[in-house]
């Protein structure tokens, strides 16, 4: 019985050390909404781009520098906070013609896998918008990291991707003045917890 206990103990210790090592490497961050931007642009009449942004967002990220595949991210955006610089247009965008913000108040991205190529994290995950879930890949480039003046530690990422609004059930007005392709821009500042 004793001869069995010692190797078991060693194995458990090793497993514990390995686990605690990865826990140490993985750090949890919260999005700083005041210094982050989620914006989009879409073609109007096929001649120019109209820009908009979402003012209210929240989210967390777990960043594992040693094992990027163990990293994860979740971002939530309150659709109601859409701002295109024209209140009438924003009301229309919140209506059932587009975002249907009262039925689908939140847009959410939840990562399922993370790959790192140099400073770029390729984050694949589920994007839920307008009640539709699609898998998208979001390349996020690390802008910088460092201590802030208040004793905290921050890191920042920037990236963009393109979706089609029709893929997410927003089909009204297709072929009209408002385009189908939407370019999404992410500039996220994260505070280590």
């Amino acid at each position, binding site marked *: 019985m004793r001869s069995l206990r010692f190797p078991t103990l060693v194995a458990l210790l090793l497993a514990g050390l390995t686990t605690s090592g990865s826990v140490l490497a993985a750090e949890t961050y919260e999005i700083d909404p005041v210094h982050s931007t989620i914006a989009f642009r879409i073609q109007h009449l096929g001649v120019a781009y109209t820009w908009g942004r979402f003012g209210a967002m929240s989210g967390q990220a777990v960043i594992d520098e040693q094992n990027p595949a163990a990293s994860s991210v979740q971002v939530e955006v309150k659709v109601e906070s859409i701002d295109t610089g024209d209140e009438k247009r924003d009301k229309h965008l919140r209506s059932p013609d587009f975002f*249907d913000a*009262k039925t689908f108040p939140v847009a959410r991205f939840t990562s399922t896998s993370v790959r790192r190529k140099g400073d770029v994290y390729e984050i694949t995950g589920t994007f839920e918008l307008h009640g539709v879930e699609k898998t998208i890949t979001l390349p996020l480039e690390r802008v910088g990291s460092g201590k802030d003046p208040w004793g905290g530690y921050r890191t920042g990422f920037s990236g963009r991707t393109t979706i089609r609004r029709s893929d997410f059930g927003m089909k009204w007005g297709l072929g009209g003045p408002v385009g189908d392709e939407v370019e999404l821009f992410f500039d996220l500042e994260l505070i280590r917890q």
Partner: protein
Amino acid sequence: MLDVLWGTVLVPALVAAFLLVAASRATRRGLPATGALLAGLALAGGHLASVLAIAGSPAWPPVDARSWLFALVPTSTLVAASAVLVGRRSFTLVTRISWAVLVPPLVLAPLARHAWGPWQASLMFALLAATLVLLAEAFERIGTAVRPSAFLAAGAGPAALAVPLLVFGASALFGQLAGALAWALTPLFLGSVVSREPGWWRGLPLPLATVVVLMLGTGAFFAELPLPAAGLLASGPLLAALAARRLARRLGPKGAWIACVALALLPALAGIAVAWVSYEPPGAYGY
């Protein structure tokens, strides 16, 4: 522009007209419940074909007002046809009330989940359910007391006036769908003018009330349509129904017809004024 004409005008009118011909044949063969079902399906089919043409295929299972249209409107035709088949007034009323109790929690579920407390949700469910029952009863009473064509005009007129109402209420999509409803009702209205078959139209009040309530409810609860404006539009057919029998006695068939349709339309015009004041049309940014 051609897309809008196709989806909002031609598709609903042609599909409804085609299904109406099938309905009239069934009624002539002495199958009133089948005729009522097909007349209801003419309305539902015309309108839903238009929804498909304008906004594409809906989500299944239903998740929003547009996708609930596809589930609820055809089902309402079955409910209405079953009431015609049974033929008892009490059964018709019970089916209408049961239907009205079922519909609002399904359509308003997101608001009940995210925005409303239990009391507010219950109040809004009750408001929508009462409107649905009263509208179905009103349409039937106008059809019986005056003429079936009067009830269809009292439905099509406010549906057409709901177009600007919903556009001012920040939902151009549902404005288009209101236009499609008016055009789906047009062949039914023309059919009611020429048809001498009794009873075929009795399958229509419940589906029509369901579509109207779904559109006004969506405009008021999910877009920016002021609730008083939606209420004014819905009150038109109710006023016409309240006065229908008296008008028929005093003014005769033609006079009662004109007075009923006018009564159905006037509050809708007031509703447009209310919506105009509280929400300007989105012309400034041109979409």
